[in-house]
């Protein structure tokens, strides 16, 4: 049988970056084909070339016998595409978005309702809600509906589940399997290995080159070091019993919606505390209150001994903070960023050079002192951002999804840094969607619909819920609750 998609020797270069180099592969009709690789490895460029949005410098590609370059209009009629970015109109309602894309693709919701019924039935209760007000998982489902409405023969999904919680991810992939059984060919990229395992075949791409194409088992075996690094070992040093975060009956209410609903917990000094929850469960809101950025509606919280209600400024002085969105100034050099933030965090001027040297040495970026931050790979940036956030040696650091978009090996390196910081006595408070990272924590809390549903060590949680891994624990706790929160 002739493959549905054939890509041969495609190369693409942006000014000084070789985005793709000599990429060749083929995808069969009805196949679920995964593309895995770290951020910046050329996945999105590949998707854009395949969806006729970009012209390759060299090489050619055919889809269903149509030439990617010459027959681009015909190809555009028979493919569905979800770009990496959130690609809906936030100010249109669910229904209006779908209706718009249906008309653009020369069809209507009524005519192709069967195609999307499974997914859309979950969205229908919210069809009047603006797309911008949906949770991450719901947005992606809606985007998938929009990409499916014209019954495409191929779906191109560029990291559809990045930033989506495990339960919604699982639902999303169930939908993909159903589509596969309806003979839709799917090309999907993902940073999650559990998702990669569900593909028929996967291609591992790194620095613009395809390193291997085979079944997931073979690829994960072949690139074991990068994709499935060994678990981290930690010598736990829970020396003290002093409490660094104490939260009692904390509430944050927006209108009549309780984003955080009477949560209480404690974090001990030196602990690595994982703060988990589905999208929209209230994690970010809770974290903002603890950092002194937002005032609680009621309840008490003490962070590093300061009351977040009345001493927000003192709280800020004693913590570090790093989020996925805020990292560093892209247009400053590495050392300039370090010096700037050290100054902002109040490190004495005489100590800044010493600490900078020590820190760059530790994270292996000494040779990159003079490099602009935007030229660093994402994994390096994350390590740098983390080290910068603790350059003033705070008692406590808040990390909000610090490892999005990088491969498992890079994430593991990041966690080594976290462990080092913890050994120096810094308490770590971290949110993540990666359940393998959850296992790295000393203790975990699970937030569901604004409440803390469970809080314990990973081992005891697994025992309690009779689960193999944290993913199963998460699924059991969050399932059913997500529907209500959306």
């Amino acid at each position, binding site marked *: 049988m002739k493959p549905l998609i054939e890509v041969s020797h495609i190369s693409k270069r942006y000014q000084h970056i070789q985005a793709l180099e000599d990429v060749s592969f083929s995808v069969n009709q009805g196949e679920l084909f995964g593309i895995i690789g770290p951020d910046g490895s050329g996945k999105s460029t590949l998707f*854009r070339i395949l*969806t*006729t*949005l*970009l*012209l390759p410098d060299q090489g050619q590609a055919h889809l269903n016998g149509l030439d990617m370059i010459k027959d*681009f*209009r015909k190809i*555009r*009629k028979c*493919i569905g*595409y979800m*770009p*990496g*970015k*959130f*690609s*809906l*109109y*936030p*100010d*249109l309602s669910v229904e*209006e978005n779908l*209706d*718009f*894309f249906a*008309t*653009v*693709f*020369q069809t209507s919701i009524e005519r192709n309702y069967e195609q999307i019924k499974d997914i859309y039935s979950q969205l229908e209760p919210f069809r009047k809600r603006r797309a911008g007000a949906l949770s991450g998982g719901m947005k992606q489902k809606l985007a998938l509906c*929009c*990409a499916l409405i014209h019954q495409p023969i191929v779906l191109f999904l560029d990291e559809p589940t990045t930033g989506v919680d495990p339960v919604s991810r699982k639902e999303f992939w169930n939908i993909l399997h159903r589509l596969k059984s309806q003979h839709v060919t799917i090309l999907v990229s993902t940073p999650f290995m559990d998702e990669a395992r569900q593909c028929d075949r996967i291609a591992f791409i790194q620095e613009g080159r395809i390193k291997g194409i085979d079944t997931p088992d073979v690829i994960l075996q072949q690139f074991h070091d990068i994709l499935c690094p060994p678990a981290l070992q930690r010598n736990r040093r829970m020396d003290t019993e002093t409490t660094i975060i104490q939260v009692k009956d904390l509430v944050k209410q927006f209108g009549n919606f309780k984003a955080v609903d009477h949560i209480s917990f404690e974090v001990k000094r030196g602990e690595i505390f994982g703060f988990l929850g589905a999208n929209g469960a209230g994690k970010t809101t809770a974290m903002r209150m603890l950092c002194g950025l937002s005032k609680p509606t009621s309840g008490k919280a003490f962070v590093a001994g300061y009351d977040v209600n009345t001493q927000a400024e003192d709280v800020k002085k004693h913590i570090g903070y790093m989020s996925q969105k805020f990292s560093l100034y892209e247009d400053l050099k590495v050392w300039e960023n370090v010096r700037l933030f050290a100054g902002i965090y109040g490190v004495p001027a005489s100590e800044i050079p010493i600490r900078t040297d020590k820190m760059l040495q530790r994270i292996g970026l000494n040779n990159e002192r003079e490099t602009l931050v935007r030229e660093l790979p994402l994994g390096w940036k994350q390590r740098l951002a983390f080290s910068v956030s603790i350059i003033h040696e705070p008692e406590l650091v808040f990390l909000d999804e610090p490892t999005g978009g990088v491969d498992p090996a890079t994430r593991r390196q990041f966690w080594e840094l976290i462990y080092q910081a913890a050994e120096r006595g810094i308490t770590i408070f971290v949110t993540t969607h990666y359940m393998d990272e959850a296992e790295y924590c000393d203790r975990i809390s699970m937030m569901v619909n604004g409440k803390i549903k469970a809080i314990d060590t990973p081992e005891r949680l697994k025992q309690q819920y009779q689960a193999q891994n944290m993913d199963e624990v998460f699924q059991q706790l969050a399932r059913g609750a997500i529907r209500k929160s959306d």
Partner: protein
Amino acid sequence: MKQFFAFIKKEFYHILRDTRTIMILLIMPIIQIILFGFAISTEVKNIRTLILAPNYDIAVQQIVDRLEANEYFQIIQIVHSPEEIQQAFRKGNVDLAIVFPQQYSNRIYNEEQHIQIIADASEPNSAVIRSNYAQSILAQAEAQLKGSGSLPTVIPNIQLLYNPQMKSVYNFVPGVMGLILMLICAIMTSISIVREKETGTMEILLVSPARPLSVILSKAVPYFLLSIINLTTILLLSRFVLHVPIAGNLLGLLAVSLLFILVSLTLGLLISCVTEKQVVALLISGMLLMIPTILLSGMIFTIESMPPVLQFLSNLIPARWYIELVRKIMIEGVPLSLLYPEIGILSGMGCVFMLITYRLFKNRLN
């Protein structure tokens, strides 16, 4: 065609749901017109005048009386030495000084006697207007003083056509029309297209079977309608609140306005083709359209008194031609048949912008 309407519908949702922006767009013309109509004015009133008369005789008295009777002048002091004039100007509480020569009434029939007018020219335009007022009043008064016994002097009878009261609104209404239409059509259109590039929805639209050009054109439709609403508001306000007459053909005025709206829209589309970020689109339209439109279109500064380079540049600004057309049709009542050159230039600009846009527009990403 159904697709095209779907696009337009979506565009209206965007605009109507962004309440703040739509309010600004609808209210701004009203505020501008009222501001320019009532608050900002180039008319010169209450000229604070100082009189220096070494001999305060009957002739001087008569002239001063005349000045005082005039609503534009306000005599604040009569002084006797030049030093006092200097002091008054220094303090900044005088706009104009009128200096009579020694023995004025005796020398009035004498050819070489001269009344001197000293004006504070730190605001040059007002200074000129003030001294011209003063001059004309002095000329009339002198003529009367000389009476029938003297040689007949030429007293010009000045008639100001089209705007006899020299109201500055007459000048500003066309200017504001040009400014507002340019703002809404060019800036808003370009930003709304670039926003889709930024959010990533443009990628999906490009991958769809929709013709990219119809994506772009559909963006222009709502702003076209919005500009027509604004045009109506401005015309109604200026006619019934500011009492600016519409001397010429109303239909002709609407026709050239539509033409200008189209030109501005294509300019907006052109900007959106060459930019990837909303901020850049905003800066380009602000720097390259708004500022030159305000400064070089003749809205505030007269084009004829600009240096040649700027005069040349002003020719390149669409708003300049539009404002000129509005002024001629609305204020002067010139028939359209005499305005073909301006209309031709404006249409030509529109065609050129359209052609460049079409050339630059890509079916793919960069």
